[in-house]
């Protein structure tokens, strides 16, 4: 059951990320940046809300897990070159971490 929920969530998360990238990625990969930041924030919120195993499998592990990505992120970072790549990495990791912490804080308040 948990496995099916993970797969279902990911079946929506992955294409949504692709769609965002198609729309927004330009010289700077804004679409993937946004997917990674928003997905991390939502996962933080879900964990703060402490929803239980099944909703977390569907929305957290499945949807947020597949909506965000490291493989494209790392490949883009290398493709951008040392200076712009470093900026992209820091902008993603720092903002996503802050978003996740903020989401967790809000979720814990609401729970």
């Amino acid at each position, binding site marked *: 059951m948990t496995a099916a929920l993970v797969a279902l969530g990911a*079946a929506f998360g*992955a294409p949504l990320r692709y*769609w965002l990238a198609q729309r927004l990625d330009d010289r700077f990969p804004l679409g993937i940046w946004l997917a990674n930041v928003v997905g991390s924030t939502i996962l*933080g919120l879900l964990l703060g809300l402490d929803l239980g195993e099944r909703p977390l499998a569907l929305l957290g592990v499945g949807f947020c897990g*597949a909506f965000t*990505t490291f493989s494209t992120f790392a490949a883009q970072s290398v493709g951008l070159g040392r200076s712009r790549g470093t900026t992209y990495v820091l902008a993603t*990791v720092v903002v996503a971490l802050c*978003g996740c912490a903020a989401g967790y804080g809000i979720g814990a308040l609401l729970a």
Partner: protein
Amino acid sequence: MASPSTHTAPLLLGIALGGAIGALGRWGLTQWLPEASGIPWATLLANLSGCLAIACLPALALVRRRPVLAAALGPGLLGGFTTLSAYTAESRALIADGRIALAATYVALTVLGCVVAVLLGERLTGRSEDEAVAAGVVEP
């Protein structure tokens, strides 16, 4: 960018299917490889291996010829297998637990390791990120 002649619907379906399988693989890894000594090994392993694999994909002729396959394997399978949200959530939890040094190690190890994995894949196959984008393995 996928070639304009390729319709979007089959690409999105391929990515949905690939993403579902990739996420299952990642979830399976977390079940099989429990967190030990604080480092989330399963996520780290998924991210490192996924980054190595995405840099190697453009070397496959079949992937370069078939945009739907490229999308299903790149943004789909590997996009769903690797994840940034679990990485940030795990890092946040380590920081909240006061394990700052471990969090910093995990944050840096993942980022540097994944960049090295991409460079290694490109070196091994002789393919660049431009070719990965051209093949539709890497968005957009």
